[in-house]
């Protein structure tokens, strides 16, 4: 039965619309500021760049994106299949450890491996696009792993057992049944990896790889032309959007039932040799992605302690850790609050609602420094018109920093919460409304409780992302506010690995806890993207 509630909807829609449009506009404003620069292209920049660096940048960007997305797909999907389909010792712990590389920033894994391998490979051999890709794969594959694992688990036993009864072996069942059914999930995971690769600036520069994102920084800081840099950044946003639209288009028509299986699949028990083979493979991946970085960082930290060289930028470890945590908590509150509001308001507003909510997610496809400039211009404009009274200045304030971070990471919260809300039965909402409940009450009592685990998952994922975030924090932080990532950046920009060790370790530790929370939420049915 369909229930329509025209009278209630129209009467209360005006404040709802106003809130919705204002919120999405606010979140999208830095991106809009940047994208609007394309209206008046800087022709001299484009022609000069095309004649010199641009072809190489595009080539490097495509090579890196293909390698990293491909590598992450193989590694993430393969490992996810192993941990869901087979039984082996310490499966739960290994599953958690396989997600923890998410807690290691690419630039940290990068400098650890750069230093570790420059002995055997030499300073020249170690600076290669392939090693850069490898550093990115081992830190980004968990995105694919998480999505693939959730999909394999949801598929349950039914489809695979059906295939098996038709005489298909376990390996073929994977390629013929499980893999095609997981395709939307793999696409979602790959999209996240793609965004990370396209917007990375820390790791690529370590390995001398000139991507378009690096080019944005070159143009901006090399010529001081912020507009020209923004135009180049648009190239990134457009290509990311095109690739994602292309995948969606190709998938159209192929629909897979996503209804969770009634029966969870029971893992296949293997022979001893195969079992240890699988454990060995997982341990090898964990060693490269997490264990070696932690061991080397600890070693450097101890060296620094011995030589008394463990000085920090300002204050001690606790100062940096509390700065990072305050920032993470504040931004999570804003992003989750904003994400919930946008998701709830958007689903009552049809296709225009969906379009506006997509607009609010665009910041995620922008390199951090570009979002930072956009936010800087927006905040400065607010300051000039005196948006906040009593002479409070937003630029360089804690609130300004949280605003800038939220415009970039709102998408992470929104996507997860929106997917969680998808599972609320429309009939439940309609029943509540017919019983006379107002929209806000329905949201609080019916919709949000159903999306609770997704809120937890989104918060955990945000925590991981925000701990690692560097460019926005660096450019917009208030005085005396030095997060762990800022400390790491200052030390690594001088190649002072010993001084970067302690803050890196704290970052990784906090990230690993958040990854644990994320995994627990996912196992209780949370979604991280639609």
């Amino acid at each position, binding site marked *: 039965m369909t229930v329509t509630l025209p009278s209630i909807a129209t009467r209360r829609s005006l404040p709802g619309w106003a809130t919705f449009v204002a919120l999405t506009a606010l979140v999208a404003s830095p991106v809009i500021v940047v994208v609007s620069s394309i209206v008046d292209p800087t022709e001299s920049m484009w022609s*000069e760049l095309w004649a*010199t660096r641009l072809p190489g940048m595009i080539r490097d960007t495509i090579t890196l994106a293909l390698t990293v997305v491909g590598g992450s797909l193989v590694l993430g999907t393969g490992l996810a299949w192993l941990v869901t389909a087979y039984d082996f010792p310490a499966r739960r712990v290994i599953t958690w450890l396989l997600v923890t590389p998410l807690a290691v920033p690419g630039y940290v894994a990068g400098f650890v491996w750069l230093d570790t391998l420059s002995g055997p490979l*030499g300073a020249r051999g170690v600076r290669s696009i392939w090693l850069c890709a490898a550093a990115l794969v081992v830190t980004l594959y968990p995105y694919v792993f998480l999505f693939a694992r959730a999909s394999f688990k949801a598929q349950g036993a039914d489809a695979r057992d059906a295939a098996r009864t038709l005489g298909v072996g376990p390996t073929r069942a994977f390629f013929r049944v499980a893999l095609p059914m997981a395709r939307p999930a793999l696409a979602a995971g790959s999209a996240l990896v793609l965004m990370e690769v396209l917007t990375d600036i820390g790791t690529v520069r370590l390995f001398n790889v000139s991507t378009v994102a690096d080019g944005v920084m070159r143009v901006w800081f090399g010529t001081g032309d912020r507009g020209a840099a923004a135009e180049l950044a648009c190239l990134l946003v457009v290509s990311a959007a095109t690739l994602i639209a292309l995948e969606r288009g190709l998938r159209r028509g192929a629909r897979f039932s996503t209804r969770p299986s009634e029966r969870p699949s029971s893992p296949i028990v293997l022979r001893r040799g195969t079992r240890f083979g699988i454990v060995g493979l997982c341990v090898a991946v964990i060693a490269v992605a997490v264990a070696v970085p932690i061991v080397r960082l600890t070693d450097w930290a101890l060296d620094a302690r011995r030589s008394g060289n463990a000085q920090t930028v300002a204050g001690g470890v606790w100062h940096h850790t509390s700065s990072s945590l305050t920032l993470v908590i504040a931004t999570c*509150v804003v992003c989750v609050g904003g994400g919930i509001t946008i998701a709830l308001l958007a689903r009552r507003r049809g296709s225009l609602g969906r379009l506006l909510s997509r607009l609010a997610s665009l910041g995620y496809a922008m390199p951090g420094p570009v979002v930072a400039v956009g936010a800087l211009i927006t905040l400065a404009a607010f300051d000039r018109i005196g948006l906040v009274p009593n002479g409070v200045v937003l*630029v360089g*304030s804690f609130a300004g920093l949280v605003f800038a971070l939220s415009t970039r990471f709102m998408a992470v919260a929104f996507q997860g919460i929106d997917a969680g809300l998808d599972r609320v039965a429309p009939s439940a909402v309609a029943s509540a409304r017919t019983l006379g409940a107002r929209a806000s009450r329905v949201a609080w009592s019916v919709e949000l409780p159903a999306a609770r685990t997704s809120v937890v998952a989104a918060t955990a994922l945000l925590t991981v992302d925000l701990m690692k975030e560097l460019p926005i924090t*660096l450019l917009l932080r208030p005085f005396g506010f030095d997060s762990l990532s800022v400390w790491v950046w200052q030390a690594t*920009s001088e190649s002072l690995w010993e001084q970067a060790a302690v803050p890196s370790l704290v970052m990784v530790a906090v990230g690993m806890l958040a990854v644990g929370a994320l995994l627990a939420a996912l196992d209780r049915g949370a979604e991280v993207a639609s």
Partner: protein
Amino acid sequence: MRSPRRTRFGFTIAVVLAALAAACGGDSKNDGASVTVYTGRHYGIEGVFDEFTAATGIEVRFTTGSDPELRERLLAEGDNTPADLVMTADAANIELAAAAGLLASVDSEALTAAIPSELRSADNTWFALSRRLRVIMYSTERVTEPPTTYAALGDAEWSGRLCLRPSTHPYTQSLVASLILHLGEDEALRVVESWVANDPLYINSDTDILKAIAAGDCDVALANTYYLPRLLAEDPSFPVAISWPEQDSTGAHLNVSAAGITTSSPNREAAIRLLEWLATTGQSTFSDANFEYPADPNVAPASALTAFGGFVADLAAVRELGRLNPRAVEVLSAAGYE
């Protein structure tokens, strides 16, 4: 009836919001005598400021970042900037800040007496505080006759043996700007192309460049002098030495750490005091903290630098580096310098 779980959810949100309000509340403006510094130079700067505070009672608050990032921040903040003093690690960047109207002229006898005219802007919007020289470094184990000109690094002899810093870095850009000034754009392009033809290894850290020489990854390189004493302090037999370039012509490429007072400085008087202190009483502390040469020629450099001997520096180019920076970036791009 409310479920206990939902009540707890609401309570958690309330606690977080309260914590947030407390965090934001601590954001008030500082009063009393204080100076706010944006600095692109961050080696041991804290100790220098501490000494100033001990001597004058004026607090120094500072934030670090790369020179261009800080310039962008100043531009966006406009009149609302909290910054009083801008400090850069490169002459071009301070000149670009001045050209963007971010720096105010300072009329101070103490400053003009201490800092030679070549090392401050014509309108006294910025003043050099220390001298940094970008020179040729070579392996003492494998090189007997090091190059003595920047152009000589393009000789075929150094093919596959040269280490350079990427063109994204201001030090590289300023060196090329000085080549454009002395040789003209065409000849500068030819020199840079000859370096590129030697298939250099690009390393984005002068410290790592010197370590690469020691490890045998390259034999000659361009680097700033102050990185060497740091490494020699750790290992007195570190096998890298300086070859002072252009001693028979223009002199070794001279860059500077420099500072200026912002146009909208909220604490102009205190900021001028800091600038004057850095140029006079604090000259040794400021320069020696990073083994740089003092801007004031009458102040003796750190004793660790005496072993490097005397040299001729290219004073003439310092004030031109900002103007020529965009052309230097173009030359580097055109030459295919990474």
